[in-house]
């Protein structure tokens, strides 16, 4: 059962900043630790920057949910951009199609609990993760 839910359209860097600050406030509100917050917000930042960079626009939704392991963040970012040709390759360290560090997606995978990335060429990309308060 969702305790809180935020949904936002991402179309500029300003939207990303606003979304990340809402995310941080939400996690602080439910008592996530500094490392969990830092990991969540950083992972979110990676995914949202990807939306802005590759797709131009998309949207994000995040909730804090609770299951037997306690409260956790559920984060989903979706766009209708060009899609990722090879999601597995995109998840590999130092692979970049744009000349950056190439650590974004693999980094996200290392930082969060259940990272899933699904993409269809020409349709778009959905990236989601969970992170338990622990």
């Amino acid at each position, binding site marked *: 059962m969702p305790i809180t839910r935020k949904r936002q359209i991402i179309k500029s860097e300003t939207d990303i900043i606003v979304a990340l*600050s809402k995310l941080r406030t939400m996690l602080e509100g439910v008592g996530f630790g500094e490392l969990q917050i830092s990991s969540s917000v950083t992972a979110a930042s990676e995914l949202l920057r990807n939306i802005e960079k590759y797709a131009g626009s998309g949207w994000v939704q995040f909730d804090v949910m609770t299951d037997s392991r306690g409260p956790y963040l559920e984060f989903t970012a979706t766009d209708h951009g060009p899609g990722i040709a090879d999601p597995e390759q995109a998840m590999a360290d130092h692979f970049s199609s744009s000349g950056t560090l190439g650590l974004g997606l693999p980094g996200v995978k290392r930082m969060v609990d259940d990272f899933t990335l699904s993409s269809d060429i020409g349709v778009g990309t959905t990236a989601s993760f969970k992170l338990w308060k622990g």
Partner: protein
Amino acid sequence: MTDVIVSSTGTRSTTKDAATLLKQFRITDADLDLVRQFGDKIRPKIDAFVDQFYVWLAEQPFKYEFFMDDAHVQEVRTQQTKYWHDFFDAKIDDDFVETRRHIGRVHAKIELPLDIYMAAMNNCLENCVDVLMADEEPGNERQRTLLAIAKLMHFDEMITADTYSQVTNEVMLEQSKSMIEMSTPVTAIWDDILMLPLVGIIDSKRALDITARVLEEIGRTQSSCFILDISGVAIIDTAVANYLIKITKACRLMGCEPLISGLSPAIAQTIVNLGIDVGTIQTTGNLREALKHAFDHVGMTVTEK
């Protein structure tokens, strides 16, 4: 036909043409005909109800600065009269839409609150209803006319309010941009030592700005050590890390030793989890350590008196 325009400041607005907007508001040619027919009845009354509006405005508790000056009031009154003549001419084309956008822009520029604009719209609507009630047309016909007028008013209000908020957003973005620029104070804290405390969120524009400022200051002061304190930075993701690495590389090229201070335990762990190789960049947990390194680098020691 919808063009999405993204301005340099990042605001996005939709500029739709008249035909699209009419369709969106379900305004038909029949509606426009009704407005035009009704126009013949209301046109002789426009001057009177515009006057009435300015009497109302003068009674408002706070006088808007713009209306203090009689010449301005006269000008605005003329504009408003023209607005209603245009409205009842009901010739809705792209030029008409542009005049409404212009009104939104002007209202936003002079910071005239939208409630004044809405009050003027209301004032006209009330007068239209009065005229309609006194009319001899059958009830159905009058209701259709009223609906057509209401639709066209909503159409006008939407365009004006949309443009108004767009201009206001642009102003706000400009303000926050200048705040960000002010918040990159590169300061010489000692001979040969520069420092920049970074606060907030770093985006690509800000990163470029920071790099330019830092390099300029290094060039100007010929400092040999630069401390970048990031304890106030909310997020270090791979993009921000990339910027920081680039800034430090550029510093080195100018013969200045970069030091990054203020890595909190959480941020340090996040950077490791991301897999970022900070390489040979000198980093410290707090500013005190960085300062020690810096003094060491420029060959100074701090001793107690």
